[in-house]
């Protein structure tokens, strides 16, 4: 693993009004790492991702990607990043080919390369027969696949996946998990956000747990296991303050009385 971090985040803070969402976050990510980024709802996960992808331009602190400052040259950073957003947002009146053509050209890809690659990727994801159908008829899983392709079509160094498995069937999930490993072997850095602890546990070689705007755990699954609990689910529950007792479920069961 290389000594120079690919992503450097220093003292990153972000607030909405008076609410501090990120509190002095500092983080170094090295090339080829698969980062599992987990945390409860509202912990600041999405905000971190949105800052990293350039969706939120104003923040305090410093974000450097490949030595480039986010405040300075966000466009240069965006070229290196592939982003698969959580809410399957795409222009669904277009066909997958039209959409990928559009996205690829925004990355300044030459047309023939773009079209062959898009065609190959669509076929590989099992959408070869649907590549000229409008996406408004697509199922959630099919849209998610197109979204995934649009995130990797320009062969980026860094891939940021926000809940990429939603709507996918079991086979597709297996494929994506394998894909993540393969991509990391190819030297890609992957930033994986999810609520599915079992997947995060398996794919990531470094896990970051964020709670209330602060990173409260950082390490391999093995090291987290040793210092906290035996499954990631338990680690999560313990560190984010869900008490061990059954009081919540008690309350639910008692509600029927």
């Amino acid at each position, binding site marked *: 693993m290389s000594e120079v971090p690919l992503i450097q985040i220093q003292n990153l803070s972000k607030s909405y009004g008076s609410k501090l969402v990120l509190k002095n976050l500092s983080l170094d990510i090295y090339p080829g790492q698969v980062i599992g980024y987990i945390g409860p709802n509202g912990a600041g996960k999405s905000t971190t991702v*949105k800052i990293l992808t350039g969706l939120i331009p104003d923040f305090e602190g410093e974000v450097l990607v490949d030595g480039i400052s986010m405040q300075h040259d966000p*466009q240069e950073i*965006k070229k290196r990043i592939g982003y698969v957003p959580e809410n399957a947002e795409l*222009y669904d009146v*277009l066909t997958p080919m039209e959409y990928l053509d559009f996205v690829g050209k925004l990355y300044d890809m030459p047309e023939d390369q773009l079209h062959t690659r898009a065609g190959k990727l669509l076929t590989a994801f099992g959408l070869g027969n649907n590549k000229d159908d409008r996406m408004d008829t697509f199922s959630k899983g099919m849209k998610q696949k197109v979204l995934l392709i649009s995130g990797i079509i320009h062969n980026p160094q860094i891939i940021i996946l926000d809940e990429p498995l939603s709507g996918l069937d079991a086979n597709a999930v297996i494929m994506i998990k394998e894909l993540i490993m393969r991509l990391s072997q190819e030297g890609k850095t992957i930033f994986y956000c999810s609520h599915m602890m079992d997947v995060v546990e398996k794919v990531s070689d470094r896990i970051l747990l964020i709670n209330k705007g602060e990173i409260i755990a950082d390490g391999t699954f093995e090291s987290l296991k040793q210092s906290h609990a035996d499954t990631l689910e338990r680690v999560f529950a313990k560190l984010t303050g869900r008490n061990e007792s059954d009081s919540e479920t008690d309350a639910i069961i008692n509600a029927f009385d």
Partner: protein
Amino acid sequence: MDKLLLRLVSLLMPALQKTGVDTKQLYEILKVKLLMDGRRPHAMFAGRRKASTANGKASNPIMVSLVTVLMGIFLGVVLFLFKMPLVAQTVYFSMFMVLMALTLITDFTSVLLDVRDQYILLPRPVNDRTLALSRILHISIYVFRLAFLQGLAGIIIIGFTDGLLAVPLFVLQIIQATFLSILLVNVVYLVMMKLVSPQKFKDIISYIQIAFSVLIFGAYYLLPRLIDMSVLAKIDILHYTVSYFLPPVWIAAINEVLIHPPRATLLTSIAAIIGVTIPLAGLWLVASVLAPGFNKQLAIAATSDGNVNKPIAPGSVKKPKFNLIGRLANLVASDPVENAGFRITWKLAARIREFKIKVYPALVYVPIYFLYTTLSGKGNLDQRMYKIQHYPAYIILIYLSTFTISAILQNISFTEKYKPAWVYYALPITTPGKILSGMYKAIATLYYLPYCLVIGAVSIAIWGPQVINDLILAFFIGLTYGILMALFMVKGLPFSKPVLVKQSGGRIATSLVITGFVGIVGFGHYYLSKWETVIWILVPVSIALYCLMLYYYKRQTWENIELEEF
């Protein structure tokens, strides 16, 4: 046409490249945006495009263009109408700009406020300038297509009235007027974005749409009755110097100064100069100041909403407010299932935008139509008023208001987001008729009853308290009519069917038969209204009939309901 416009834009590309815009990206964004516009149904004529939505297709772009051209012809007529050319043009451009601004706001807002852009375009290496410019050019292409279609008739007409030389100038005037409209719309947007969230903004826009269709309907029926055209033709709004502050005057002045130099005054000359410069300055303002700010606002609006989950302090449960409609629901629909039907209908009807856009204008049509029929008599206003008071027109009015029930019923089971209705089918509901009767009661209590109360109050004010018995009778006959309509016409639970389901011809015939039947009852009522006691006797009869109908309506089973596939 899109390709042509796109090519026109391409001509500008080399110049733009120097300003830091990525022209390749710009071209791609524009291409995709225009492609998507072509595939998207237009919202402007939402109320009137039932036929086109019925077969599930987006409204035909050519049809939309045709409607715009037609509007343009109506506008163009104004150019003939007025004796003074400057006034004619002023009025023309006022209407032109208002129509354009409204079309922009209603039809184009969903495109502009497309928050998907935040996720699709922002993570890509597209710089702000390119993004802002793509937005501006997208609007411009849309706008100029609209301006051309809308102004077409005017361009031809001006050729006849002012000579060929005025034609190119008129094109220029249209462009200037368009620039001003854009400025206007932009300012409206920015103010709105500052004040409200995009979601709220969309709501406000749907109200603007409703108001707009009412306005057109009202203007069409009432304006000719209220205003004497010959007087209007001689009117000189420019008599007042204040009116020179109105933007359309500046635009009109350009024609006045250049085509009719002898008529030009110092004032019109200044106005003309302003008319040339201000729109250009406005465009610059939009491009350099307003648009970037707008983008920022949009970005903030789109990215911040996920993070506002306020922690709720334990124990601070809100005190339930006195809830009139809730009480009413419990009063008229006491059965739990019926109550659920009542409440869901009431809540959804008040919140589903497309429903409101289709139904609310219908609520206003009746009074407008009534005014139209009563005002269309001979004589001056006092004479007409006297005449109205001496024949029972209120009966017509109250029977006309059954139109509101049928307008609501026609739309009540349809929505674009019909999927959540799975809950009706998944839950163990043995008598869906209860939901339907709850739905019907909601419509009757929350729309029809208040409506009739207002009409009743007005009627009592005009005709005196002796009309009360007629009002009650007509109210219940209206309710019975509504149930008949619901029984034969509404084959779905509230908001449970996609809009594209077609109404079969047989149903329209049934509807006509029912309406005809009520019409006959109405005429019967009209002739019987002389005998007050007869009416009083008929009131309980009608109430009994209504209860009987409701009883049967409530007993509808799943066989009577057309199921949707999910």
